């Protein structure tokens, strides 16, 4: 054996050990990313879970004319303006007649949501014969009660550190003992707009806002993006202008999204005087942002169609435009749609530029058109994440879960399209 072989052999063990370490380090890096993902999703899911159920309390509402301050023969207008809040308070006092101090009484009234009187009102308007009777009704509980009931960890916290005090806990226990407490699916969260009261806050408004914004984005960016891609792939002459367009598209894809927000404020709001906070402006800004994504994906899809297809069409006498529009474009469509959906998913998750054009306002009403003031799902997440109430933390997480579900659905659809219509030539 030569000397060199000797040296190599002596160092082999060390080198192999280093090899193993390097490999492990690589594996650990990949695992780290996966672990972050699991941690993030697990964290959000566990926080969101309680928000999908909510607590109802059964109260016996005395609907007598004297409590409601109704005249003897009330017409529908009188019924609509009757004092249902008094009835709810009376019902709560009837449940706990021992409560006497002012502050405890106030706490007692706040055991049920401010929505309770409207629940009673709706019941009476639907059935005026209830007047004069005592009617049992399930009403929404306040968020403090709801959160306390659902959270084991909160129940272990000492009294001074939680909003739901011990005397309220005894009420809750008594109500449970009387079978006056039930848990059901939190439809409120999906049916209502934003609210300052956590138990009444929902994502319906944000969902509608996201929907209208995305419609505008799609209506603008899809046709323009596909047309630009067709031009650049099939018609553009090789010259300075074309190069400039291509450089521009690549750079726009990497411009920070907040800069598009600045453009939106300066041009659309301040110069063109389009309405603030409207899905119209949001959609325009987002479509400028998603255009590069759609153009790049569409170009790749058009490029992947073999030139023989267009050549065959040209050989049969079609014009260039006919060859592209009738033959190349339909074959490239699955790829274009995949790119568009991915671009839309990006637009759905985008927040920063929408903050700048005023989609951060507190809006209770569900928008019904593209010029109504609105907010979108990610901005709703941002708004709620500022609220200190624990119930809002849950709802923020739940809104994130809804957002992620939509993103997953869109991406899954894109993957399906790619798998289903992918052709190898």
């Amino acid at each position, binding site marked *: 054996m030569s000397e060199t072989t000797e040296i190599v052999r002596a160092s082999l063990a060390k*080198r192999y050990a280093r090899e193993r370490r390097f490999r492990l380090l690589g594996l650990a890096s990949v695992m780290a*990313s996966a672990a972050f993902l699991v941690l993030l999703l697990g964290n959000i899911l566990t926080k969101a879970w309680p928000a999908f159920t909510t607590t109802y309390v059964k109260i016996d509402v005395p609907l007598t004319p004297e409590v409601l301050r109704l005249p003897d023969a009330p017409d529908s207008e009188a019924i609509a303006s009757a004092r249902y809040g008094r009835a709810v308070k009376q019902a709560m006092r009837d449940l706990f007649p021992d409560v006497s101090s002012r502050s405890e009484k106030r706490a007692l009234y706040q055991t049920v949501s401010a929505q309770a009187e409207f629940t009673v009102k709706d019941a009476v308007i639907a059935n005026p014969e209830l007047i004069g009777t005592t009617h049992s009704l399930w009403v929404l509980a306040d968020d403090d009660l709801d959160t306390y009931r659902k959270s084991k960890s909160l129940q272990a916290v000492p009294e001074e550190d939680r909003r739901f005090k011990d005397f309220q806990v005894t009420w809750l226990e008594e109500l449970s003992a009387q079978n006056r407490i039930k848990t059901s699916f939190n439809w409120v969260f999906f049916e209502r707009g934003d609210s300052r009261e956590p138990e009444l806050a929902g994502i319906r408004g944000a969902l509608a806002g996201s929907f209208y914004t995305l419609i505008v984005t799609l209506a603008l960016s899809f046709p*323009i993006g596909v047309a630009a891609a067709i031009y650049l792939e099939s018609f553009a002459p090789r010259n300075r202008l074309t190069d400039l367009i291509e450089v521009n598209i690549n750079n726009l894809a990497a411009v920070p999204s*907040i800069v598009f927000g600045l453009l939106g404020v300066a041009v659309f709001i301040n110069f063109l005087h389009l309405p603030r906070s409207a899905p119209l402006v949001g959609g325009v800004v987002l479509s400028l942002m998603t255009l590069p994504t759609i153009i790049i994906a569409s170009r790749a899809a058009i490029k992947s169609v073999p030139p023989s297809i267009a050549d065959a069409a040209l050989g049969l006498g079609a014009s260039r435009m006919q060859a592209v529009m009738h033959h190349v474009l339909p074959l490239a469509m699955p790829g274009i749609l995949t790119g568009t959906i991915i671009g839309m998913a990006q637009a759905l*998750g985008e*927040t*920063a530029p929408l*903050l700048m054009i005023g989609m951060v306002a507190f809006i209770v009403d569900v928008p019904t058109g593209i010029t109504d003031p609105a907010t979108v799902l990610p901005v709703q997440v941002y708004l709620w994440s500022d609220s200190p109430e624990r119930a809002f933390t849950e709802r923020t997480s739940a809104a994130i879960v809804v957002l*992620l579900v939509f993103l997953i659905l869109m991406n899954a659809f894109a993957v399906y399209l790619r798998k289903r219509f992918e052709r190898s030539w």
Partner: protein
Amino acid sequence: MAISSLILLLLLLTAAAYLIAKRRALQTVGGRRNASQLNSLPSHYGALAAIWCVVPALVLLLLWGVLEGPVIDRQVAAQLDPATLDGGNVNLLLNQAQNLVASGRIDSETDPLRRGLAEHYRDLQDRSGLLRSVLAIALAVIGTAFACSRITRTLRARTRVERFMLGVLAASASVAILTTLGIVLSVLFEAMQFFREVPPTDFLFGTVWSPQTAIRADQVGASGSFGAIPLFVGTLLISAIALTVAVPIGLMSAIYLSEYAHASVRSVAKPVMEVLAGIPTVVYGFFAVLTVAPAIRRLGESIGLSVASESALAAGLVMGIMIIPFVSSLSDDVIKAVPQALRDGSFGLGATKSETIRQVVFPAALPGIVGSILLAASRAIGETMIVVMAAGLSANLTINPLEAVTTVTVQIVTLLTGDQEFDSAKTLAAFALGLMLFFTTLLLNVFALHVVRKYREQYE
């Protein structure tokens, strides 16, 4: 007529124009049997007429939309006698009149001046709307008639239609240029106004950032101070933390996935990375502020360090997680582009796999990797939501990662989300910051793309 029903009517007219022109073209040669005698397909004649029908009308509507407001404003303003203005200014009055019309609350309780204005306003608007509808429909009909009258057997309809389509395609492609131009001009224009009030040297080299503008001139701290150095330092600090997290993990992941991993591992790990890249940044922000920041704070306190609740470390760490996929996917590409022959040569000389990667593949891929890191850095600098939610608002000039710092993007958001006059230095400062942000990221991107492209050509 409402704009939506007008557009609907125009579309119906367009469809009619298409059908009429198509039939007329066939009639000139005596029916479908002789269609081959036409210069173009019958549908091309139809399309030509449809273009003549709808395009002029749409252009008119667009111009009308832009010009209607200013013209009406001027007419109403002309009616105002400057002497009757009791101290109010013209724009305010016009605004009030507009609001009155929009809300439909013009009644006897409104004061006569405003009522007169509002009624005049409404009159003009009604007349303008009527005129618009009549003109648009007339244009559509005239356009159709003109196109139909020119239909002959030799009219080269296809060439004309296709030339129009090509124009539309080219216009769509130039939207990208217009967008860039719009960004540059709007940001530059507002930033110029800002620099007229605050000298650029104060902005670039000042070390105190407190963007208040005075309500009264004699107020304490009345003059805002716009030294952006603390913001730049804060941005760089958080980006540096993010890159410290993302570069090693992203790079090692890319190496592992492209050189070591089984196809089965790749098929799981790649989507995980994609999911990480696809999660909205607001979700990362929420995670940072609610989970990571308190955890770091507790950890710091347990070893006796005081950590700000909005520490740069929390925002930087989470941002680092966010940009791992950018580093890894770009590095993956460049590592794969290194020719197999280089590896084979190294293996042939007896090197182990890790030695080959470290001493052959990595140096060969280095320019591309640098490019990918620069792109990731540009992401980190421009990232907004994570820092808006997890980093602080007060501009501390520090490089201690445990303290709260603020960034350029955070300040842009806070300066622009309030309800203040658009012309105040405070709002304009946001555009000056935007200008810095845009050009910094632009330079990084152009440089990085250049490096990556140059390197790619080297091995092709």
